[in-house]
């Protein structure tokens, strides 16, 4: 898949209008590909449509969709505990979401956020294993740096083949996800395994010096600051900075960017360093702030969900926050319905459906219905 295809695949039209035969006589469907603006109601409608479709599958399995959705809603947002849990889940989603958004802005299809997340988690854990006696003032910053660096390097491992060998980044980033997962399994079941381990195999518990501080007795941790800072930096980057301008240029027209003297390869590497770094930071925050150890299944697919988060938000900063919060709620809701017998995959199914409807909705939003005659 060449760059041209990737660029053209984005919904930027370039035509001055196209006609299609209307399905209903007396009306005509017209596409207005010039407008990039997706109507505000599209994400909302997409979520509702997805809920409706998945309701069918839920009902077919003998359960009441309304009961299920109700439980998810109250589980995620109804209680104080649920709300903090949702926020806890929002943190990695937001960090990864910002990360992939940066990449998508230049049409670099990074779907390796999951692997980059795990790399960061493992690197942070490595600090606790090999430098266990550092005080908090040294340990936490080191873990943070390690997480960002590892995630960044994992991201670079996708960028380099693309930049210098034209290897499709979708495939590379995906493959690396699986490699990271296997690596995680290895360390968690092998060299880093806590011998006095509890039920779940994993590393030894982190000490207080190795854990991100939490807010007021809840599970909500300092990672929230990371996440919010990331969003603000992201917004600032693209609106006001020179680098952001260069990236916007690449995203709009890579040829024109070349004409401006921008090196596409260099930008790809920098972007993936940043994108992977953010996902790696998310991984560090998760092991250090929430789980307090590295364990099997540390990520319920944050990296993949983040892709949907980013796409629904149309890569917009405020949208990212809202979208991440929504999907955090979805994950928490998914846990809460496990008690009534539904698998956690329910929320995965919902997520996929939402993405489908969002992209369909975005296309639909470009359709104008005109009356003939």
């Amino acid at each position, binding site marked *: 898949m060449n760059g041209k*295809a990737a660029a053209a695949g984005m919904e930027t039209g370039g035509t001055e209008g196209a006609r299609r035969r209307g399905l209903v006589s007396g009306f005509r469907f017209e596409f207005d590909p010039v407008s990039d603006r997706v109507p505000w109601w599209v994400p909302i409608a997409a979520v509702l449509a997805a809920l409706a479709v998945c309701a069918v599958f839920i009902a077919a399995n003998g359960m009441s969709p309304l009961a299920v959705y109700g439980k998810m809603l109250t589980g995620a947002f109804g209680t104080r505990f649920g709300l903090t849990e949702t926020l806890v889940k929002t943190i990695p989603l937001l960090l990864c979401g910002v990360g992939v958004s940066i990449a998508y802005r230049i049409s670099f299809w990074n779907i390796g956020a999951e692997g980059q997340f795990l790399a960061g988690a493992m690197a942070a854990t490595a600090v606790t294993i090999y430098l266990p006696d550092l005080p908090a003032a040294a340990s936490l910053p080191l873990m943070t740096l390690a997480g960002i660096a590892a995630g960044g390097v994992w991201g670079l491992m996708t960028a380099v083949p693309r930049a210098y060998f034209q290897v499709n980044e979708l495939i590379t980033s995906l493959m690396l996800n699986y490699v990271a997962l296997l690596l995680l399994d290895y360390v968690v079941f092998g060299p880093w395994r806590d011998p006095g381990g509890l039920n779940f195999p994993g590393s030894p518990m982190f000490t207080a010096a190795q854990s991100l501080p939490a807010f007021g007795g809840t599970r909500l941790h300092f990672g929230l600051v990371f996440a919010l800072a990331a969003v603000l930096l992201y917004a600032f980057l693209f609106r006001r900075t020179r680098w952001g301008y260069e990236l916007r240029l690449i995203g709009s027209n890579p040829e024109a960017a070349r004409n401006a003297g921008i090196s596409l390869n260099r930008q790809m590497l920098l972007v993936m360093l940043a994108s992977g770094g953010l996902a790696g930071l998310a991984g560090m925050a998760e092991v250090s702030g929430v789980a307090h150890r590295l364990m099997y299944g540390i990520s319920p697919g944050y990296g993949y969900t983040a892709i949907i988060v980013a796409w629904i938000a149309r890569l917009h900063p405020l949208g990212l926050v809202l979208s991440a919060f929504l999907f955090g709620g979805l994950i928490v809701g998914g846990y809460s319905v496990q008690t009534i017998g539904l698998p956690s995959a329910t929320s995965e199914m919902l*997520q996929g459906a939402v993405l489908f409807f969002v992209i369909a909705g975005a296309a639909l939003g470009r359709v104008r219905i005109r009356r003939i005659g």
Partner: protein
Amino acid sequence: MRERVCEVSFPTDKGAAAMDLIIQIVAAAMSAGTPLLFAVLGGILIERSGIIQLGAEGVMLMGAVTAALFCIRTGSLAAALAAALAVGAALGLLHAFLTVSMRVNQIVCGLALTLFGSGLSAFLGRAIAGQPMPGAVPKIDLPFLEPAPVIGDLFAHLDALTWLSFALVIGMHLYLYRTSWGLHLRALGDSPQTADVMGIPVTAFRYGCVIAGTMMIALGGADLLLVFSPAWIEGMTAGRGWIAVALIIFARWNPLRALLAAYFFGALDALGFRIQLIGSNIPSYFLKMIPYVVTILVLMYLGFRNRGKPSGSPESLGVPYIREQRL
């Protein structure tokens, strides 16, 4: 992972032992490679018409879980396969509608298909997870081949789906390079404007290719379940769908090369297992990484070797066709 039983008596000399090992590996390669082959062939058909195919992982999972559900509930293999094909057709229709008619971003659409397929298959399959399938795909026995030295071991008792995959390879090759329709498809993939002007129905062709191709991919999932692995496990494709996407590129969109590519990766799959059997010290995790890492390395090698040369991909891949587009 199911082992193929070789009906050869144990040899006593080293040469024959090596031969036996090679036969075993090739047989395992065929066994592991067939699901990949279905997926790659389907993907080639889709991409030849100019549509990017990224939903293979989700489609394979849906094909597998559907086959599993129908096999267990009805006990009929035919029903299982038919159901998998039907699901493939439905997903194909959805994908075609979104990409051809609605002209959405094909990459994101494929991703959505993957995510949705993964989630939905996990949801649907939870009741039957781990349950072995009643009955197996019938083998086609060719007793006259048994005496033949290598061919006999490999082909005398091959299952029907593998034979189907061979037929598909040959069929697609003939179709693409020897028939008018195949020529139209090749032209369409390279230049839909030209095809349109010559009266080739671009939209109909794309719909047809996407639907047929997605059905093949779903069949790959069904094969994975019915022939290769005894039971449904959540996420059982483990990235094979994505490897299939890479294989389309290795095969340069050519069915015969697809066969080689699929079997090569099938061999990698089988190799890891075999190295374990020999009792080496390498942790199994690293062995399992082999197919993924090799995929990247091979793609890098191809990229290096082919720099500046055409990749063989259809020119219009990924670009939606709008007849009235002002050129």
